[in-house]
């Protein structure tokens, strides 16, 4: 091998080594995450039970300030929305538009119905004002492990009783607690108490559920996302077997959305195995082809349909979609006609 050839080989291998090494380090270490993510998901995960089957998060302030939201307000009766916001503020003392920075919500399929939802809102809150307002509306204040827990009067809901195979009325309570400065948890009293337990005593929270955290980590970059376990939800829903067999064998699903002028979303499903994923991809491809054929004469929807991109490898199937603001304009224009009908 001549010197010239040797230098060429060295330079070539150097470029590859540096490139692949940089990529590998970036993959494992990650580049600086946003405040929403600290590399292992939002900090609110430490208040959510590790058995949570669905976790969702929304950057409320960012979305409220987005162009799309302003557009929707103009399209879909902004005055009515303002009235709802004022009512909520009168009831709870919270201005949804300005006080709340983000919300992280969880659904725990292992808890009973009416007892399985928790939402954690981070923002600027006046605990004294909120407590006073809720007391005015009949809430009780309890003390739980040094934290004030505001319990809303119990309400009825229907729950399926496997013993009698009937829907029966059960009572459930809703609770609200200020878990730390700027963080309020509200939802079922059981889960709010569990959040307080996790905060005071540690324990097994969603932040220690490696599988869940790994899925959440892949959603970085969006200002709204949801991730969940389909198999856990399916068990909870007690779907008849004949219907359950028709549902694709998906274990995890996730949706990552980014709202600004429009909506960009990535929907991901993790199948049981590669074959199920391939079959699911085939089904989705079929629908995409059908959608594209159907919209050839509708240019306003064509852009949206053209943006649909199917992807994913192995057990993962993903669909990327971009909904431009113009689609919402069309929906806004069509809605009055639908309402008249």
């Amino acid at each position: 091998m001549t010197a010239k050839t040797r230098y060429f080989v060295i330079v070539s291998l150097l470029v590859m080594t540096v490139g692949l090494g940089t990529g590998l380090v970036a993959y494992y270490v990650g580049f600086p995450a946003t405040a929403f993510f600290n590399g292992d998901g939002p900090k609110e995960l430490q208040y959510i039970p590790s058995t949570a089957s669905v976790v969702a998060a929304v950057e409320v302030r960012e979305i409220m300030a987005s162009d799309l939201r302003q557009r929707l307000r103009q399209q879909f009766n902004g005055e009515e929305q303002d009235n709802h916001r004022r009512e909520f503020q009168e009831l709870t003392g919270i201005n949804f538009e300005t006080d709340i920075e983000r919300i992280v919500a969880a659904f725990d399929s292992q808890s009973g119905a009416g007892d399985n939802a928790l939402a954690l809102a981070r923002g600027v809150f006046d605990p004294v004002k909120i407590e006073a307002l809720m007391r005015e509306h009949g809430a009780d204040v309890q003390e739980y492990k040094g934290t004030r827990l505001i319990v809303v009067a119990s309400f009825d809901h229907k729950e399926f009783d496997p013993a009698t195979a009937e829907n029966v009325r059960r009572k459930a309570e809703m609770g609200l607690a200020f878990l730390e400065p700027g963080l309020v948890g509200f939802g079922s009293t059981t889960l709010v108490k569990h959040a307080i337990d996790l905060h005071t005593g540690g324990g097994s929270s969603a932040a220690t559920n490696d599988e869940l955290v790994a899925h959440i980590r892949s959603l970085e970059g969006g200002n709204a996302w949801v991730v969940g376990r389909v198999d856990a939800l399916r068990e909870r829903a007690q779907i008849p077997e004949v219907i359950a067999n028709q549902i694709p064998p998906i274990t995890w699903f996730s949706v990552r959305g980014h709202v600004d002028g429009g909506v960009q979303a990535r929907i991901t499903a993790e199948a049981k195995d590669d074959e199920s994923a391939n079959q699911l991809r085939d089904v989705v491809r079929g629908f995409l082809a059908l959608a594209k054929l159907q919209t050839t004469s509708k240019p306003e929807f064509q852009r949206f349909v053209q943006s649909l991109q199917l992807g994913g490898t192995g057990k993962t199937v993903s669909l990327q979609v971009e909904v431009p603001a113009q689609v919402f304009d069309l929906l806004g224009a069509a809605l009055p006609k639908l309402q008249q009908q």
Partner: protein
Amino acid sequence: MKNSPGLLPSALRVFDFSFGQMLWSRRSVFLGLLVGAPVVIAVIVRMVAMTAGLPVINGAGLNGPTVFGLLIWVLFVRFVVPVLGVYYGTSLIADEVDDKTITYLFTRPVPRASILIGKFLAYLACVLLLVLPAVVVVYFLIVPIGGNIGQSFPQLAADLGMLVAGLTTYGALFAFVGAALKRPLIVGLVFAFGWESTVLVVPGYLKRLSVAYYLQALVPHSMPADSSISSLLSLFQETPPIWVSLAGLTAITVLGLWLGGRAVEKREYVLEQ
């Protein structure tokens, strides 16, 4: 009397002197252009993104990972890999015959098949040392536009693996074509751009007689669905599991080299006067 060296040591010896020869030959100018074009395109895309931003096509906003996937698919998988395989693979023995230097190789006390294998290894080293760094450079130019280098790294690794597999398999196949047939370049081009493109869309088992069938299964995420027709056609494309793809590509490579070696051993090369 010493025994003649075995197949592998002889092949390595042939590789040693062929590698430098192949790298600095006139053919490498074409290789340089072929590999340089995607890098130039990547630089242009990067400059456009920095000034005006990437365009929105049919409502879909482009970002770096999407453009990178398109470049890999459209440029490398569909064009660069088959062309390099045909251009270099068919010429491994043919060039020696045309230059009338094959006699010198055949008079050496080495198995004839080792000449083909050694030259194949030299071809592989040449193309990999040029193509793979070019892909890495393109990756770092394009992916950071609206994307994340770390997040997309598995895609890069898969694409690099696919390129290695593709260049190896096409090279071995066309090495056999070059060793066995009279007009190897024409046969190679017809196979790569005629047969392969056609059988992939024909329903049935025929697609299994192509290299692209196994190669495309390694990177299905890169495959664009840009129209209703291609979406519909993709329904007919069965994608084999990765282990089947790798086994198929390995089988084609081994068979190509074995048949090529046999062809070199048995065939009489008539040098034109």
